[in-house]
């Protein structure tokens, strides 16, 4: 795989349309899968890291997602929505992990554990305090609101893509996102509305 990857610069893979990669898969599925991995892995890792707050867990989840993609029979079908599928599987694995943690009685923290901030662990460097504040507030929200805010404002998915990831109607995406943003305002500045 590594030898073939050298043929494809990461930025080139990121700009390839899904349809072209699917056509390539007919001749060279391994190279096509490499391009899919290159194209999506960094954003998927960010998405998983935002939810799990653990670099190693996020890394393992992204790896598992691509292994499942290799086994997915429909993955190269022309009508198959790869991006939506990748985010959906990533989200499911992340929230399953978070749920398991809660069941085990572990306390979720809004920022990485202190030991996680070590050099070998996940480090999120914030340019300003507001970024940390917003992310911390998002962590206090319900999984539905948290996920849709991450998909839209941190993973940069369109409303149509979010609808595919969450398997809901476009109108539901609009209303859920509006309510999530309104809730975020309440969490970050509870007294503002009354004022």
């Amino acid at each position, binding site marked *: 795989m*590594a030898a073939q990857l050298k043929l494809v610069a990461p930025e080139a893979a990121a700009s390839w349309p899904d349809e072209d990669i699917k056509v390539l898969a007919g001749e060279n599925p391994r190279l096509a899968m490499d391009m899919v991995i290159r194209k999506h892995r960094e954003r998927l890792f960010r998405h998983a890291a935002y939810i799990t707050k653990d670099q190693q867990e996020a890394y393992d989840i992204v790896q598992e997602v691509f292994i499942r993609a*290799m086994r997915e029979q429909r993955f190269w079908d022309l009508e198959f929505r790869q991006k939506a599928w990748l985010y959906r599987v990533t989200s499911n694995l992340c929230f399953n992990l978070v749920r398991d943690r809660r069941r085990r009685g572990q306390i979720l923290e809004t920022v990485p554990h202190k030991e996680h901030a070590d050099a070998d662990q996940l480090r999120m460097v914030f340019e300003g305090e507001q*970024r940390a504040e*917003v992310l911390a507030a998002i962590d206090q929200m319900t999984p539905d609101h948290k996920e849709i805010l991450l998909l839209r404002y941190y993973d940069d998915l369109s409303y149509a893509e979010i609808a595919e990831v969450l398997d809901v109607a476009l109108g539901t995406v*609009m209303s859920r996102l509006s309510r999530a*943003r309104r809730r*975020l305002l309440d969490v970050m500045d509870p007294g503002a509305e009354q004022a």
Partner: protein
Amino acid sequence: MRMHCDAVVDRLAALLDEELAPGEVELVGRHIETCPDCAGLMDRMAAQRFSQPELVVLERPDFWGPMDAALDRAWADHEAPALQAAPAPPPWYRRELRLPAGVALLYAAGMLLALGLAGALWQEASDAHAQVAELQGVVDDQSALASTPLPVEPVSFVSRAPYRGSL
């Protein structure tokens, strides 16, 4: 048509993200012009800033190396069954016959017809053979009769005294 506040609030994020259909943009805009509550909420939402935190870990050289290696192995496992030598085809008499249902029915009907015809012909041939055998028996019997010498009955001669009378 005037929109209700709840319907407008549900569309505010889409309005700010420019994901709202043009017709709805106009309706929401008209409502906001006359509704200070919705206008205030929209202003607060518009002030929200979402920006991606920088993940320093992604800048580490060969950060993806272990994942590439693991996916390499996974791909090899994924391809392994396809790369295995195809098993030798079974002998012709053990091969599965794959035919469409209609063709299979026609095939079965043809086979039954052929078997029936063969049976009828065989029966006819058997009858003819029996007749020939019977006739042959008759012929044989007659031949045997013809070749058998007739029994010769002993001739007895009765000697008579010469006629002495007068005619």
